C-alpha cells in the first residue's frame, strides 16, 4: 500500500482537469513571455571577439556559421579544469540531440568556454557530442557576458551575475569541503571553479552586424536541462537534496 492519496479514475480525472486549466494558463503565459523576449531591444556588439574553433580562428559573426541566429551556451570549463562541469554536461546531454533540428531552423547553437580548444575537443569526444564548441581563451567574451569573474570581483563579494551582484564565496567553515569537492571534480579549488558560471546568450546577425538580443542565467537556464521538464512531471518531482548529477559516464550504475 502507498501513503499517497489514491482515488478512482473519475476522482483522478476531476483533479487532473482542474490542474489542466492551470497548465494551460502557464502555457499561455509562456507564449506571452516569448513574445516579450522578441520585443526586447537589441544592442550592437562592436568589440572584436576572437574565438578558436575546429575550423580555426573565428569572430563572433563567424560562430553563426551562415545562419542569422546564434545561441551561445556558456559552458563552465575554465582554463585549468581537468574536465567539463557536470551540470553543464547534463545540460549539453539535453540539448545535443536538438542541435541538428535548430540548425535547420536558422539557429546555430554553439558552446563557448575559456579552456583551450584542445581540452574542449578531448572532452567533447569523451562525451560523444557533435555540437560546435569554441574556446574564448584570450578573449574578454566570457567576462563581458558575466560568466567569468575576476579575482577582484570575487574577493569583494561582488560578482556580477544574473543582472545583480552576488557573493559566491563559501560560508565560513565550508571552504575546505567545497575545495575538496571541486578538486575531485575539476582539479581546481572552489574559487577557481566558481569564477566560471553557466548561462546562455542569444545573438542576431543582420547585414554583417551582430546584435545581442537575450541572456539568461541561474534558473533562467532550467529550460535547457531537458531532465527537469521530465522530473517536474514525475511522482517524486525533482527530489533533490544536493548535487546528484554526474557526467553521464560517471554514474555508478544505471
Amino acid at each position, binding site marked *: 500500500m502507498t501513503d499517497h492519496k489514491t482515488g478512482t479514475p473519475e476522482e483522478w480525472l476531476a483533479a487532473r482537469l482542474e490542474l489542466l486549466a492551470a497548465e494551460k494558463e502557464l502555457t499561455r503565459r509562456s507564449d506571452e513571455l516569448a*513574445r516579450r523576449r522578441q520585443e526586447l531591444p537589441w*544592442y550592437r556588439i562592436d568589440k572584436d571577439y576572437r574565438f578558436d574553433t575546429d575550423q580555426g580562428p573565428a569572430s563572433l559573426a563567424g560562430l553563426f556559421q551562415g545562419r542569422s541566429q546564434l545561441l551561445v551556451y556558456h559552458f563552465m570549463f575554465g582554463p585549468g579544469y581537468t574536465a567539463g562541469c557536470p551540470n553543464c554536461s547534463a545540460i549539453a546531454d*539535453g540539448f545535443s540531440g536538438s542541435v541538428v*533540428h535548430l540548425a535547420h531552423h536558422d539557429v546555430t547553437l554553439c558552446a563557448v568556454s575559456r579552456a583551450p580548444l584542445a581540452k574542449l575537443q578531448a572532452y567533447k569526444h569523451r562525451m560523444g557530442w557533435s555540437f560546435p564548441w569554441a574556446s574564448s581563451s584570450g578573449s574578454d567574451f566570457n567576462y563581458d557576458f558575466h560568466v567569468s569573474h575576476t579575482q577582484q570581483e570575487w574577493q569583494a563579494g561582488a560578482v556580477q551575475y544574473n543582472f545583480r551582484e552576488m557573493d559566491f564565496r563559501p560560508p565560513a567553515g565550508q571552504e575546505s569541503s567545497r575545495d575538496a569537492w571541486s578538486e575531485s571534480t575539476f582539479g581546481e579549488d572552489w574559487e577557481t571553479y566558481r569564477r566560471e558560471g553557466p548561462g546562455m546568450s542569444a545573438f542576431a546577425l543582420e547585414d554583417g552586424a551582430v546584435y545581442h538580443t537575450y541572456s539568461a542565467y541561474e534558473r533562467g537556464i532550467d*529550460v535547457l536541462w531537458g531532465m527537469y521538464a*521530465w522530473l517536474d512531471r514525475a511522482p517524486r518531482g525533482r527530489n533533490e537534496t544536493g548535487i546528484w548529477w554526474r557526467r553521464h559516464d560517471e554514474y555508478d550504475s*544505471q
Partner: protein
Amino acid sequence: MTDHQIASREEWQAAREELLKREKEHTRTGDALARQRRELPWVAIGKEYRFDADDGTRTLAELFDGRSQLMVYHFMYGPSYQAADPVNSSIADGLDGLLPHLHARDVTPVLVSQAPLVKLQAYKRRMGWSIPWVSAANTDFNFDFGASAAQEPLRPPGLDEDGLPPVVAQNAAAAGTDIPGYLSESPAVSVFTLTGGAVYQTYATTWRGVEFLMNYYPILDRMPKGRDEGDAWQTWLRRHDEYDD
C-alpha cells in the same frame, strides 16, 4: 540596417531586468504547478497489460526496470505506418541523451507504440537511439490511455478534417500512411509509480502538454525570431538523417 529597435547596452539591460521579473514569477508559478501535479490522487492499475519488448513479453510493472517511477511517451507509430514521423523522431532525439540522468533520479522513460515490435526495432536502429521502446500491439494499453483509436481518428479538440494543421498531412506522408491511418495515434505522456508491488497512474498529458518533450521549443522561445513557424508549425522538422546538407 535592421528594422528591429536598437538600443544602448544600458537600455537593453533595463528592459531585460524588467522582463526578468516576469520570468522569475513564471518560474515560481511553474514550481507551484509541479507541486500540484505531485498532489494528484493516484489511481491503482488493476488490469494486466503485456507488452512486446526486446527481451520478450513484459508487464507494466516490469517496464519500470527496477526503478519506482515510469514515464511512458506514447510515441506515434501506428500499425499502418511505414516509419515514424519527423516530429516524434525529434522527441526521441532529445530524450536519448537524458536517459542516464533520469535513471539516476529513479525515473525510467520508455516509448510505447501500437505498431509491431519488429517495425519499432528497425526504426530505432536506423535512428541510433538507445531508449527502451516496446510494442502495445497485443494489449489494450494504448487504447485505455487514449493514445490509440481503433475506429475514429484522433485529432486535437475542435478540429475537423479541413481544420487540421499542415503538419498532419506532411507527417502522414512521411509515415507512409494516409491521414486517417496517421491519426489512429495521438501524442501523449502517461506517468506511473510502483510501490509495494502495485502500479498506480499519477499523471497524464497530451497535445501542447507534451511540448516539454520538444526541447528545441524553449530554446526558440529565447531566440530573436522565436518559433518562427506561424500556422505551419513543426513542418520544418525532418528526421535527423534526412536534412539536406
